[in-house]
């Protein structure tokens, strides 16, 4: 076999990149070929030399300066291009299903149905929306109560991160419901508008902004969000 094939393999052999079969082929060739054996020895010496001359330690970087540079650039990115409202794939799928369902109900209500059938469908649709709205309020309640609580302690960054995630997940649901009920139930739509604003405040808060939770509490209390939610939930 030609030596040129083994020249490449000698390097891969030293890096441990050859298969067992290739290893034994090369070793058998090396036993017979003094030129390739010499080449192997020379390559080994070069590798040793590279190792001896290797810079032993990577210097310490100025990490503070480095992060500052990154932070300056990423903070210039306009807020709207940031995806504040990240939705996991499952959320998008369920939101799409809900949307299609509602669209179906409304198309049926306006274009297909008539007479008694239309009346029954309209009633069923209204009941379904009411039920979904109540469930949405149930999901909103814990996080809003927590922020509205008078004895609100300083929150840890982990707890803030979890709140942000919860708020982000609730925003899409809130937007969908708001759109659906905007014509039929303006009172509930206005409440969802207020909730939307509060959820966005929670989702976009930063842990170093210590005054933000108090502002969120003020927004919840000032708009009587929890009280209105309770009333609508009972109707």
């Amino acid at each position, binding site marked *: 076999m030609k030596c040129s094939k083994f020249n490449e393999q000698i390097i891969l052999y030293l890096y441990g990149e050859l298969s067992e079969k290739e290893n034994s082929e090369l070793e058998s060739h090396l036993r017979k070929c003094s030129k390739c054996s010499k080449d192997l020895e020379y390559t080994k010496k*070069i590798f040793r030399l590279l190792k001896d001359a290797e810079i032993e330690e990577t210097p310490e970087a100025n990490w503070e300066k480095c992060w500052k540079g990154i932070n300056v650039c990423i903070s210039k990115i306009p807020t709207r291009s940031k995806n504040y409202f990240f939705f996991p794939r499952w959320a998008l799928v369920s939101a799409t299903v809900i949307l299609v369902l509602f669209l179906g109900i409304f198309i049926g209500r306006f274009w297909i149905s008539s007479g008694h059938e239309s009346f029954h469908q309209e009633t069923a649709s209204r009941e379904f929306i009411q039920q979904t709205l109540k469930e949405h309020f149930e999901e909103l309640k814990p996080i809003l109560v927590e922020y509205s609580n008078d004895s609100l302690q300083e929150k840890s960054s982990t707890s803030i991160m979890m709140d942000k995630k919860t708020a982000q997940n609730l925003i899409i649901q809130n937007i969908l419901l708001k759109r659906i009920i905007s014509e039929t139930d303006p009172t509930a739509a206005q409440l969802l508008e207020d909730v939307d604003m509060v959820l966005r405040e929670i989702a976009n808060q930063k842990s170093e902004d210590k005054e933000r939770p108090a502002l969120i509490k003020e927004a919840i209390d000032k708009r009587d969000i929890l009280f209105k939610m309770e009333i609508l939930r009972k109707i």
Partner: protein
Amino acid sequence: MDERSIIQSAQAGNDEAFRQLFEENKNGIFSLAFRYTKNAEDAEDIVQETFIKAYNSLQKFHTQDQTRFSSWLYRISINSSIDHLRKHKKMKEKHSISQDVQNIASNNENLNPVYINRLIEVREKIDLILNQLSFKQRMIFTLRHYQHFSTQEIAEYMNCSQGSVKKQLFRAVSAIKKDFKSFFSEKNYEMQ
């Protein structure tokens, strides 16, 4: 919090989560960039470029995929390193070779001055040879020889075939072998 949750949080716009990803991956990226450029300032610039690019493309990273976040970052940093070196064709200010050697000498008092001088010359020669390689060859050699990645991993990072990586690696090492042969005959060195 596991890495996946941190990434999802960063994708949702949480800059603190992104900072956490920076803290966890900065050393690996810096080490590669430093080995590649041999210059700490250039390496810091590459770390910055890598994380800014990563931030801009964060939505393209899918946590459901099998790709590890560090591998994804490596891919970005390899491209950033090659681009960086291409832009600054001649390295601005080389990492102080003699300072490195002095550090070695102070850690090993038994080393004789002749050996230290030889080390300085060898280091300078290595830098010279690496500068003559193509940007891609130099990167492949750095990843394989200094960062100890397999040719398969390098092929994935550099988006090329394993065969092509092996070819480039062979060319890089052959160039080093050839240049050292003439260097040793010029300097009349005995290879140990």
